[in-house]
């Protein structure tokens, strides 16, 4: 039985090998990418994939039919760490010079470690866990900002509005806890009293006990970090229990998604959230990018993950061009170190600071859900220098709306 | 005295399933246990072998074994079969018996050899590698006995190992049990084929409604009016 199993296994493996390597001899410049197209995190993969596609098309259109064409080798990690590693290996074996690395911190970290050991440069697109660029792996670069930035932009608002106390609620995922830690640090720095601090486990989300606890302490601001399903539930329940702070602040993730508004309806109004990118940003070509991303997503609203995916491809292509090779990993690595590229997402430059290594600095945007023309939508408000719209403050009590 | 039970009582809920039953057993003796359905014979077996909670006292060669859990008894030399034979269906005949012989052998090879010897003794050697689920009833009965014998018991409780067999198989089994007793094992057996129990037993105990109603040689029992009543049904009072 065993032997039959082995024979079957061997032939199947051979089949995968042939299938995946069959196209390796073309003249296109290859960029590897891993994201979650299936499984529990597939939604983020969909966004990133749209960004990738838009960027590749843009690059190839610019090069024209005579110029060298780029090709994206996209692998699915299926939301599973072992499968992600198998995918990374497949790309490494496919002689790819640079790999774009996806969203979920726990999957990304294992891949980043593996890829640095294989000496393959990899660009992290959206994973926000601080520890990815903190341990200082070589060959690891990150486009998206560290979580400090999420907290910083919101605390700027706190300072401007004179908020003195806050309560914070975060999920126990790596990203949420990272933002939570940054927020607590900022609170200390800015002298904001923390009157409540709770972590919840993912799953059946009944936030009422926590929100009631917050309500009793009457904080000026409530700082929330969570994914989409949680962001919706927490705002609905905040309304239900009658929690009335002067400001609800969301630390990106679920609060920055369009589904946050559709899901929580009127409960989402006045909520301020940090985000890494908005279409209103006056970066070059941003309006155009937005339109292309909407098209690539089949009409649905793009999130910052899509814009980050877009930028990552451009950064990789830029490094390949400057390295003069799509396969020479050392040359590409060197080129990435000296990246200085303005994209529609943001300006990209990998720096070492505050213990981070090869980390891009992006200042975050804050947006507020406001009713415009009877429709609730995200309105970017911070940094004030970039946008015209004003923060609506303080948030009216639920029964006064 | 090889084995002795005093004043055994078993209670299920409010029902007295066994009431004040005592028995003794000598080396090499066959003690027959009879009684109509529901008289409590099997319950008594279960009580004596530790499977059912009881009050009273049980002694093996003077040692008190009343409160030992069932899995301690085989090591001391008390083995039993089950009324509905319960081999480990998915295992082969040899494997079934090997499990038992591990009680006395620590080494796998020795256990296997001991099991083979036991199988030869009960005439199942040629079926050693067959799965139990494929054995016919007579062979399953023999396997059940082989499993108990491989424990090298001094006291053996046999629960209806003959009923259901065809006459030649019955005769074989009777001879075999006699041989066991001759080798010095004390045997307590429940059986409802009277002919068998009467010809095989040295002594017979008759139970009815959970109580011992008669005890004696097969001849005495056969003539005891209480036994007749128990079987034919109570007389009016």
């Amino acid at each position, binding site marked *: 039985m065993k032997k039959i199993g082995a024979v079957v296994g061997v032939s199947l493996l051979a089949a995968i090998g042939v299938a995946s390597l069959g196209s390796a001899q073309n003249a296109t410049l290859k960029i590897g990418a891993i994201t979650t197209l299936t499984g529990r995190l597939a939604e983020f993969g969909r966004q990133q994939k749209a960004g990738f596609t838009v960027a590749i098309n843009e690059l190839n259109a610019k090069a024209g039919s005579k110029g060298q064409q780029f090709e994206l080798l996209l692998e699915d990690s299926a939301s599973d760490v072992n499968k992600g590693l198998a995918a990374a290996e497949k790309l490494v074996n496919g002689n790819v010079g640079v790999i774009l690395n996806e969203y979920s911190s726990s999957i990304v970290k294992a891949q980043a470690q593996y890829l640095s050991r294989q000496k393959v440069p990899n660009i992290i697109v959206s994973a926000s866990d601080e520890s990815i660029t903190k341990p200082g792996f070589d060959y690891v670069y990150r486009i998206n900002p560290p979580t400090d930035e999420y907290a910083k932009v919101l605390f700027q608002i706190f300072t401007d509005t004179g908020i003195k106390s806050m309560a914070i609620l975060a999920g126990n995922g790596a990203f949420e806890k990272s933002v939570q830690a940054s927020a607590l640090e900022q609170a200390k720095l800015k002298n904001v009293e923390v009157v409540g601090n709770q972590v919840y486990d993912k799953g059946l989300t009944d936030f009422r006990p926590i929100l009631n606890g917050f309500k009793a302490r009457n904080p000026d601001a409530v700082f929330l970090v969570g994914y989409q399903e949680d962001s919706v539930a927490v705002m609905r329940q905040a309304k239900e229990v009658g929690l009335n702070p002067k400001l609800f602040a969301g630390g990106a993730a679920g609060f920055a998604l369009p589904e946050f508004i559709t899901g929580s309806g009127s409960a989402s109004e006045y909520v301020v959230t940090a985000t890494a990118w908005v279409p209103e940003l006056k970066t070059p070509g941003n309006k155009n990018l937005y339109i292309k991303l909407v098209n690539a997503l089949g009409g649905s609203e793009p999130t910052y993950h899509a814009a980050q995916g877009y930028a990552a491809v451009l950064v990789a292509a830029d490094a390949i061009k400057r390295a003069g090779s799509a396969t020479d990993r050392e040359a590409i690595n060197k080129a990435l170190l000296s990246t200085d590229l303005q994209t529609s997402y943001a300006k990209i430059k990998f720096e070492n600071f505050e213990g981070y290594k090869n980390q891009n600095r992006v200042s975050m945007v804050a947006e507020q859900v406001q009713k415009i023309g009877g429709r609730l939508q995200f309105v970017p408000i911070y940094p004030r220098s970039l946008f015209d719209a004003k923060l609506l403050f303080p948030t009216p009590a639920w029964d006064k709306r | 005295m090889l084995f002795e039970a005093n004043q055994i009582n078993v209670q299920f809920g409010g029902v007295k399933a066994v009431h004040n039953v005592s028995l003794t057993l000598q080396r090499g003796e066959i003690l027959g246990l009879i009684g109509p359905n529901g008289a409590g014979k099997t319950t008594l077996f279960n009580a004596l072998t530790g499977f059912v909670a009881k009050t009273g006292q049980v002694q093996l060669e003077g040692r008190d074994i009343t409160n030992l859990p069932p899995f301690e008894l085989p090591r001391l030399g008390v083995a039993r079969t089950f009324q509905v034979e319960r081999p480990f269906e998915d295992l082969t005949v040899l494997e079934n018996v090997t499990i038992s012989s591990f009680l006395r052998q620590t080494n796998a090879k020795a256990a296997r050899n001991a099991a083979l010897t036991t199988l030869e003794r009960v005439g199942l050697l040629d079926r050693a590698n067959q799965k139990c689920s494929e054995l016919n009833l007579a062979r399953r009965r023999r396997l059940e006995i082989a499993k108990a014998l491989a424990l090298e018991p001094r006291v053996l409780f046999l629960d209806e190992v003959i*009923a259901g067999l065809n006459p030649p198989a019955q005769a074989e089994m009777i001879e075999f049990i006699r041989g066991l007793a001759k080798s010095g094992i004390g045997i307590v057996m429940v059986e409802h084929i009277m002919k068998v129990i009467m010809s095989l037993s040295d002594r017979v105990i008759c139970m009815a409604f959970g109580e011992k109603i008669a005890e004696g040689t097969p001849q005495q029992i056969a003539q005891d009016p209480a036994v007749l009543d128990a079987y*034919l049904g*109570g007389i009016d009072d």
Partner: protein
Amino acid sequence: MTNQLPLLEVRDLDIAYGDVQVVFAMNMVVGQQELVGLVGGNGSGKSTILRAVSGMLKPKRGSILLQGQEISGISPHQLTDLGVAHVPMGRQLFPAMSVEENLEMGAYLKRSKANKKQNLEKVYAFFPRLLEKRKLFAGSLSGGEQQMIAIGRALMSEPTILLMDEPSLGLAPKVVQEVMQVIHSLRTLHLTVLLVEQNVRQVLKITDRAYVLEHGKLVIEGQSQGLLENDAVKRAYLGL
């Protein structure tokens, strides 16, 4: 006696469990409104025959006729529909249901649903003790009372024949007599009953006719009265 078609007839019945044959060439007839006993010692095959008649197992050979119609191989719940009621060994009551509900379960099938009320009254009239305790859980009643429920439940299905499997099993001697009296009085309801029992004295006292089995074979049959004096019966029981 059998001036008309017998209600139940068993012809040349062989039954085996796997490779073990337990009933050999059994022949038996139960006439209308007869109370017939089927007796024998432990393992004589009497309950096995009853199980074959009630559809719980399939005979190896032979036929079972209900009013001339072959019924072997029909499933128990279909047989119930044909008017065969079974008072099973161990009673098989629903312990956490009330006495009344247990009785009502007997009228589960359509054929007996219509007259459920009247039948319930009849059963209560027959067993006044059950009427007293109709609200109690069946599991809380005594063994004898539980046997009455089992019988009452069978009556609820308006049976053409009642099969009873060892109703005395596990009951104290006094209660056995009481149950036997109940069975005896069933004849006032003009029922046909096949009673399987090991308690031969009691059975022979209350039945019209009886069949005595030993080791799966018919030893003797005949009018119950006087059968007890027959040595064959004693032999069948004590094997002496």
